[in-house]
């Protein structure tokens, strides 16, 4: 029996049916950088878009999946493109008026609410801006419970919800509607369109009905992200160490604490791949850890023994500030804490592991949950 994050989240009813203000956005952005597990894109631009939108249109109403009518049309909103373009060519802000209109025409139904595809990185923030601008609710759920690099890596895909029709909109007003036979085709064609449209676009994909969100969404993730952000922000203010609070909230494990001694990177097929070596400090003194990443952190090994792999979350925090560290900012000498957090249970099914397990990312390795790997270590270790 593995502890499950959702058991914890669902009882937090008081977090629901409420308005997200500037403070909440700051916390969600911080939480999203942890759930980004080193990747997912810098939430900074998304955070500013969300702030811009709520200053202009007022706060956003956050609802639980349970509050959705079963036949309500729920449409995810996200950004896709090269990180270096996203920080330079800021969106227009009206992209989703076009995108949702396109979907409404095809589906013959009005959009009731929007929802994030992923809870990590920049795409956790885009739906907040969209909800504010269009005056629709934001659903407190996502399809990853973290960040992943590819569009089919969502729980919606596991439940055979089609990615298509997919709408891609650029800031100039161009839109493309894709109807594809598989979700992988949607991913491939979308990549090509994105480049032609200027390497940064807004997308709507995996349109769902209320009842599908209730079944397939990872419920409570925005509130979860906000709680993570609040713990880190408050600890920074009071100069305390939030790691224990984070571990008890996320049911996570401290995998390692140490100093980065080497980071090697290479660009492979458009992905930023690499290895980070960490040498142990305090009670980990004498040991070493290696974290492998491809945009996101994928595997953590201590003294050659695997302690966590994708799809479980491997998060690296700055040891002094406890702010999550992205793979781009890993560098020699930085003191870090590595934590492992159990992923959503749906990633642990046969189909889930096939989609996002270690083998998919090229490691010849069976997936074993972090509770077993790190739990054992804790038992035999210290």
């Amino acid at each position, binding site marked *: 029996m593995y502890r499950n994050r959702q058991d914890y989240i669902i009882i937090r009813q008081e977090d629901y049916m409420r308005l997200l203000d500037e403070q909440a956005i700051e916390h969600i952005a911080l939480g999203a950088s942890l759930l980004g597990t080193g990747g997912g894109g810098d939430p900074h631009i998304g955070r500013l878009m969300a702030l*811009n939108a709520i200053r202009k249109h007022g706060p956003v109403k956050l609802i639980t999946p349970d509050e959705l009518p079963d036949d309500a049309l729920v449409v995810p909103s996200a950004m896709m493109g090269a990180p*270096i373009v996203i*920080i330079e*060519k800021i969106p227009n802000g009206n992209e989703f008026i076009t995108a949702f209109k396109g979907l409404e025409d095809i589906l013959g139904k009005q959009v009731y609410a929007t929802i994030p595809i992923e809870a990590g990185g920049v795409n956790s923030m885009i739906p907040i801006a969209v909800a504010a601008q269009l005056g629709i609710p934001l659903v407190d759920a996502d399809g990853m419970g973290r960040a992943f690099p590819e569009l089919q890596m969502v729980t919606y895909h596991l439940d055979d919800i089609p990615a298509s029709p997919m709408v891609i909109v650029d*800031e100039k007003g161009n839109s493309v509607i894709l109807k594809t036979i598989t979700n992988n085709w949607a991913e491939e064609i979308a990549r090509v369109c994105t480049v032609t449209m200027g390497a940064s676009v807004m997308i709507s994909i995996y349109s769902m009905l209320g009842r599908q969100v209730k079944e397939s969404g990872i419920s409570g993730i925005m509130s979860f992200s906000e709680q993570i952000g609040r713990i880190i922000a408050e600890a920074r203010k009071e100069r305390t160490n939030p790691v224990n609070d984070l571990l008890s909230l996320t049911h996570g494990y401290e995998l390692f604490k140490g100093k980065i001694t080497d980071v090697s990177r290479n660009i492979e097929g458009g992905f930023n791949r690499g290895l980070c070596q960490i040498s142990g400090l305090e009670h980990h003194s004498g040991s070493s850890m290696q974290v492998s990443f491809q945009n996101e952190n994928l595997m953590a090994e201590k003294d050659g023994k695997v302690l966590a792999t994708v799809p479980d979350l491997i998060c690296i925090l700055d040891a002094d500030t406890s702010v999550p560290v992205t793979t781009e900012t890993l560098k020699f000498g930085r003191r870090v804490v590595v934590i492992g957090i159990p992923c959503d249970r749906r990633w642990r099914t046969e189909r889930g592991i096939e989609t996002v397990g270690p083998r998919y990312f090229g490691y010849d390795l069976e997936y074993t949950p972090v509770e077993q790997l790190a739990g054992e270590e804790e038992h035999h270790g210290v």
Partner: protein
Amino acid sequence: MEYNIGIDVGGTNTDAVIIDDARNIIASVKRPTTTKVSDGISQALKAVLEQVSINRKEITYAMLGTTHSTNAIVTRKHLLKTGVIRIGKPAGMAIEPMIDWPQSLRSAVSEQTWHIRGGHEFNGKEIFPLDEQALTAAFEQMKGSIEALAITSIFSPVAADHELRAAALARKILGEELPITVSHEIASIGLLERENAAILNAALNSVARSTALGFQQALIDEGVTEANIYLCQNDGTLMSIDYSIDYPILTIACGPTNSIRGASFLSGHEDAIVLDVGGTTSDVGVIKQGFPRESSLAVEIGGARTNFRMPDLNSLGLGGGTVITIEGDEITIGPESVGYRITEEALIFGGTTLTATDIAVRLGMSSIGDPAKVAHIDRRLAERAHLQIMKLVQDGIDSMKLSKDPVPLILVGGGSLLISDTIDGTQCIIRPEHLGVANALGAAIAQVSGQIERVYSLDVMSREEALGDAKAIAVQEALKAGAQQETIRIVDVEDIPLAYLPGNATRIRVKAVGDLKR
């Protein structure tokens, strides 16, 4: 004989040195920094000239590193009302300019912003043609209400022509005298950070003008009439008066840079780590080929996030006056400090506060003050406190290193007596003489440079062509800054292929440095 005068304004002191053409220090002074910074500069200048009897007409160069620009931004004073033009519409509208600035800074600098149709894609293709009609209307509307103008176009570091055309149009409508900043001359990719830097640069124009002209006048008043006058930039090189008025933001943080450069010169090491230990804080910097390493992260100035080049510094909460608290078994280092009151408050000076300097004296590392006043401190306790101090320093140095290879460490600053000669990962530890005026010396020995950072598409040209183009622009910029053509050398070439992007995009950064024209 010819001489250089170097002056550096710090938070506490304004230092001045005179060096001869063999770079020997022949005079040096320290004067307190005054609220009106120019007064302190005049006083230091007067005092350093009084120390020597030289023909003042033989002073051919005068260099000033000052905090005028930083102070103006921090205090929100003397900033120009700046019109903000962002080109790229319909892109860019989702985040308004200056959105995350503190309100006080925003209202000191600007009230109105304009989005104009135009801008470029990552590959240099136009998003839309530049809307000159909308620009004309905006400029007409600005007439009489703005004192400076900042123009930022999407992907201008790749294609600058929309910014340049907009600036030309602005000059036609708003007059040749209006200070205009175009963002691609200030910073690189990252629209919001580059725009922030451009707006601040434009708003600083009048501060920069009065600083430069004020320094010129102060020199003339002292009979230094033949000197070429330069201001220090934060990369350790100089800019002429005209250039400094156009690019004042490049002077921000020149103080620590001068200190690092001066330390490097005094020690004879061009590649090293410099640890400058002051009274309250310490700065760790890295010197590479004689110049400070630049930060690759966004840097906040007065609450605005910017991305123009800045020296990469790590500030530690440790100085000679840092307060040491001992409670039972627990020793805490700082973060409080007695600062400049150390000569009254530290135990060795008869005070009642245990400071880091007291620990150093107890352990016999220094004999300043009265060592008898700390003899009662348990030696093992003092050793433990010192270990903790050294751990802070060790961590600070480690986080600035890029690899575990050992490097020389240069120690400067009055607080450097705290530091023992055992630091892991260092090749040797150097404590040069004349530590106290390393910063003014750094100003006096500065060279001039030109720098370029741009994204090239290698589908359109070869890598060699792109590098050649970048080098030519850097040399051109160095000439513009006052370098002597024959002495210009390329000191830094960085070529980073960009992930995710098609079209073989690569970011190239080149820096050229040369001696001042004699």
